[in-house]
């Protein structure tokens, strides 16, 4: 990233998606997505099942290829060649619904693998960094254990620490609490709230509306592969403009 490229306002966006379209075969999963996320901004993405939330955030780190439009992360235009994909992935951490920890590696090894292999840190440096971050997600005592020995909530906090070990500029969360037992949801949300307070740029797919109210700068509602509505949480929850948003909120808030 050059200084010159930081002068235009568009380049200041941490993430910029412009007219992005994505197809799975003949099925169009994303329609004309335009989204700009400033550094430090927290976005909550919600919408009914199948609306394209996962697809959208998975395009940002190229777990899914997009066919039209442009995505920029930091100053880098995300192309389809491995050079820019790797560059973007080094800046973007991701946390999955199913944790996806590496079961054959210890917690500490889970956290040091990518910094060693991808950033070229020494083992000692990577371990130092990992232990600090495991401390921060309050799981330092478990460093030598294997993922299967931890509870779901602990595993998800490890997954967050593992992503943070790459010192990403952006964190993507895809329903990080959906696979958890109810009593473990809070510990993961608290970790995410702390991260938000420290200024991390975050895009969170979640239906935890309490979390959205507390940390989101903007809530984005998707339906049928398109962004239907976006607003600050106060406005989004009290005064949704679109019928589909109202219906969705009725369903999701009625459940709780």
């Amino acid at each position, binding site marked *: 990233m050059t200084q010159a490229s930081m002068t235009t306002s568009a380049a200041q966006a941490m993430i910029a998606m412009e007219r992005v379209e994505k197809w799975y075969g003949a099925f169009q999963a994303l329609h004309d997505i335009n989204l700009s996320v400033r550094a430090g901004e927290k976005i909550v993405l919600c919408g009914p099942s199948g609306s394209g939330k996962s697809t959208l955030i998975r395009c940002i*780190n190229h777990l899914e290829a997009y066919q039209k439009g442009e995505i920029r992360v930091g100053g880098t235009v995300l192309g389809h060649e491995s050079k820019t994909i*790797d560059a973007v*992935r080094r800046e973007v951490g*991701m946390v999955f619904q*199913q944790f996806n920890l*590496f079961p054959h590696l210890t917690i500490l090894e889970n956290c040091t693998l990518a910094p060693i*292999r991808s950033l070229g840190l020494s083992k000692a440096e990577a371990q130092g960094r990992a232990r600090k971050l495991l401390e921060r997600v309050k799981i330092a005592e478990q460093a030598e254990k294997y993922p*299967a020995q931890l509870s779901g909530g602990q595993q998800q906090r490890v997954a967050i620490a593992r992503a943070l070990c*790459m010192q990403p500029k952006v964190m993507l969360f895809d329903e990080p609490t959906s696979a958890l037992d109810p009593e473990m949801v809070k510990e993961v949300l608290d970790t995410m709230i702390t991260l938000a307070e420290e200024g991390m740029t975050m895009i969170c797919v979640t239906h935890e509306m309490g979390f959205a109210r507390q940390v989101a700068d903007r809530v984005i509602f998707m339906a049928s592969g398109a962004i239907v509505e976006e607003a600050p949480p106060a406005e989004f929850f009290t005064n949704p403009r679109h019928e589909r948003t109202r219906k969705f909120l009725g369903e999701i808030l009625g459940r709780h």
Partner: protein
Amino acid sequence: MGPDEYLFLLAGLKWTVALSAIGFFFGGIAGLLVALARTSELRVVERITAGYIGVFQGTPLLMQLFVVYYGLALIGLKLDAWVAVSIGLTLHASAYLGEIWRGAIEAVPKGQTEAAKALSLNYTSRMRDVVLPQAFRISLPATIGFLVQLIKGTSLAAIVGFTELTRAGNMISNQIFQPLLVFGIVGALYFIMCCPLTLYGAHLERKFAKSAR
């Protein structure tokens, strides 16, 4: 059966072990490449390796050894019997192990590769550090099962005139006219090699079934 006969059988046994080891070692290396090619997501490469696997799984090992030994000799490439057999066993093993390991690689949950990609690990690291160690565990029982098949399969090397355990037994039995005794001993020797492997494979299978919850 005197000591000479026993020594002759042991010399044959030595070759059986050596052929198995060669086939498993080189077949393992080639099989890993086959498995990686088969899961490369490159259409052409996947098709070619699928054909390779199909040919070697679809024809008898006996015929493969035959082709390598006599077939290559016909076109002027005269190989030592043990070289020909080693090549034949390696090709054979690479196809079977390649297919076993392809299945194991595909059995590793997709989320593992996705998490590794999201951490910006490159292909080499994704395979070496994340996918293959898990695939290896998954494939161990089947891999051991194949090793047992391979040990027994080396007996087919006899048809190209190679004196491994089975042929050594055959020769002695023709000399001393006690086929029941000789082949009893030969069978016991195969059993001693294969049975511990079979038991170990079964043990691993039970262990993994338990840990899979």
